[in-house]
């Protein structure tokens, strides 16, 4: 009798285990939530993977609007949020094997070229982008393109700015408005360190935001005209020398997490240990969501330049949202994507919900949208971000994203920047080693 019960128990547990294995491959771990946006019974369920939790909030708003306007083509969105590396790796395997990929996915700019290698397993979006082409910044669409085909829909311009904690600056009697060059920044930083013992900014080791800014100011890039990597260029040495000098003068210091956009760094900024972050504008959403203690203390300004007259901004980061070839209703996914990210309404919501600088630059001039006193970003920051953005409008440079970009990022962010800012290795030597490593990896 006992034996029989044992067999039943084993059979039951095996069945349960098998059921476990048979779960939908589309959730793939991570946090999943279903957004119905008021959809009715006959709605098509689309799955969407992202690595930024906040992106889901934007889609939630646009989904409601889509379902209302398209009663016969309603959508339910299955949103899965996964960590950055994890999501890109899983997506890469899924699209290339043709099994388990979501219908829509976010791909970060730095990873995008990997998805364009060979024959992209993504759907060209030209037809749905075309109606909006004249209203959006061309270079942001080109970032996610290959051979004239657009595979990703951009989210923002990502203009780089400086975020100053004025509370700390006031303690040292520093006015951020007077900072125009890196030399001004250095003098201000020395004063801040002497008066408060706090650092003016971060020396980033796990991201290339700052390096990109300094390259863009000099009209340079990580790759040459032929898209070949040139990370040991004169401009690169000059840029990093400036940053290293700032670190040696106690103006910059490395930060836990390696750069301002990490959990550890949010904690450090929130605690008021660093006065400045140089980041693309989307960092605003990190302030409102993860650094609430700093509300009302942060001012936005152009980043310092090497010499007056140099361009003061560069488009940083970006997310291309794609439709995979295995999507269950490709046309529906494409139409929804264009509606959710490129329509005028979408561009307004991208600002309202995410605090990003929309790719439809007409929005930048809509005072009722950009200066809406109910907007959380308008309330959080001391000055209006669009006042700064409009001042920089003609100066936003572009750093190319090429097939070598993922390798360049990997070498610089894991090895080179750490060697320079953590170990004090000679800059030229470290960059030469990086160049050799990158060439070796790309062979």
């Amino acid at each position, binding site marked *: 009798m006992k034996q029989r019960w044992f067999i039943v128990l084993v059979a039951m547990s095996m069945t349960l285990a098998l059921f476990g294995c048979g779960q939908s491959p589309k959730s793939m771990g991570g946090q999943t939530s279903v957004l119905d946006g008021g959809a009715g019974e006959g709605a098509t369920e689309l799955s969407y993977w992202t690595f930024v939790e906040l992106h889901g909030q934007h889609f939630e708003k646009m989904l409601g609007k889509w379902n209302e306007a398209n009663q016969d083509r309603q959508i339910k969105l299955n949103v899965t949020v996964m*960590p*950055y*590396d994890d999501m*890109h*790796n899983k997506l*890469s*395997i899924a*699209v*290339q*094997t*043709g099994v388990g990929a979501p219908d829509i996915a976010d791909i970060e700019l730095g990873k995008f070229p*990997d998805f364009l*290698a*060979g*024959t992209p*397993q993504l759907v060209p979006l030209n037809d749905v982008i075309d109606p909006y082409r004249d209203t959006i910044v061309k270079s942001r669409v080109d970032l996610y393109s290959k051979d004239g085909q657009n595979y990703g829909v951009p989210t923002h311009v990502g203009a780089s700015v400086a975020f100053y904690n004025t509370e700390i600056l006031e303690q040292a009697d520093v006015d951020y408005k007077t900072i125009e060059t890196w030399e001004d920044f250095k003098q201000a930083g020395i004063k801040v360190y002497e008066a408060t013992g706090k650092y003016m900014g971060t020396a980033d*080791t*796990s991201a290339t935001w700052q390096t990109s800014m300094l390259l863009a100011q000099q009209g340079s890039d990580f790759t040459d005209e032929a898209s070949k990597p040139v990370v040991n260029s004169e401009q690169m040495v000059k840029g990093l020398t400036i940053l290293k000098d700032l670190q040696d003068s106690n103006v910059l210091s490395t930060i*836990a997490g*390696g750069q301002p956009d990490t959990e*550890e760094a949010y*904690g*450090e900024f929130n605690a008021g240990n660093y006065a400045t972050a140089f980041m693309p504008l989307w960092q605003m959403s990190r302030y409102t969501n993860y650094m609430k203690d700093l509300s009302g203390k942060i001012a936005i300004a152009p980043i310092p330049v090497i010499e007056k007259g140099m361009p003061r901004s560069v488009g940083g980061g970006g997310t291309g949202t794609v439709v995979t070839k295995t999507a269950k209703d490709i046309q529906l996914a494409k139409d929804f994507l264009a509606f959710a990210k490129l329509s005028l309404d979408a561009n307004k919501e991208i600002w309202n919900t995410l605090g990003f600088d929309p790719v439809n630059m007409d929005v930048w001039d809509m005072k009722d949208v950009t200066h809406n006193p109910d907007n959380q970003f308008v309330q959080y920051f001391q000055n209006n971000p669009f006042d700064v953005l409009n001042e920089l409008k003609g100066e936003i440079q572009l750093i190319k994203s090429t097939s070598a970009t*993922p*390798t360049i990022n*990997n070498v610089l*962010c*894991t*090895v080179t920047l*750490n*060697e320079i800012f*953590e170990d004090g290795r000679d800059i030229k030597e470290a960059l030469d080693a990086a160049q050799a*490593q990158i060439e*070796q*990896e790309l*062979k």
Partner: protein
Amino acid sequence: MIKKFLYSQKVAPYVFVLPFILVFLFFWVYPLGSSFGMSFQKIQLGQEASWVGFSNYEKLMGDGVFLKAVTNSAVYMVLTLAVLIPFPMLFAVLINNKFMWGRDFFKSSFFFPALTSVVVAGTIFRLMFGEMEGSLINSVLAWFGIGPVKFLKGQVTGFVALVSLATWRWTGVNMLYFLAGLKNIPDEYYEAASIDGASSLQKFTRITMPLLKPTTIYVLTISIYAGLAMFIESMMLWNGNNSPKNIGLTIVGYLYRQGIEKNNLGYAAAVGIVLLAITMVINLTQLAFSGMFKKEE
């Protein structure tokens, strides 16, 4: 007929080992052969594969990051062997002692970490060894007047964290192996030794250690393999496969980076074959030295 077949003394053994043979063929021989073939190709998922001869191996030989990964894995293996063989053995002997108080409590508490998921354990260790002043280890160091240490950014300190995690996690498991081995040593040997006036140390070195040899060789073999194949611990500790200056990159981590992150499966297969070769050479040498291949007398 079937009954006769199954009850046959000649057939039965084959039927019993068949599941193992099948698993071995499907999950070991086939993937191994396939990886070997792949290591001579350029393969990107979703694209046409092409034969490239030895070029993956040639590239591997000049690859500094691969060398770094091999060194890291080898150092990790040696350090874990140095910690995870003597200490569990010692603890097993202590716990096995008749006069030991609270034996079961120690047994279960040592074993408990092995039941915890590596993902959870790795995350907790990452927070413990965080570089901020408030992280656990740094607050402890602060009591002794030592400033905050950036544990996960330095080679030595990074390995301190990595080996601590391995020690915490595997001490109990290895201890159980040794305890099982100790149960096979008859008490009479110790009694006889006591009558002859042997000290505790003599008993340990002359009776316990030699008779534990088969267990030790087993633990050594699996520890060599586990050390060289370590991946998730490092991935969790550094919150991804990209540790600063690759201080935590292991051979499997590099295989993952090339195969999965960079979609360069042929090159990754070559990394896997080299890993297999290294593991086999070390383990076979070790087994040969310890006399495992000699016929039992």
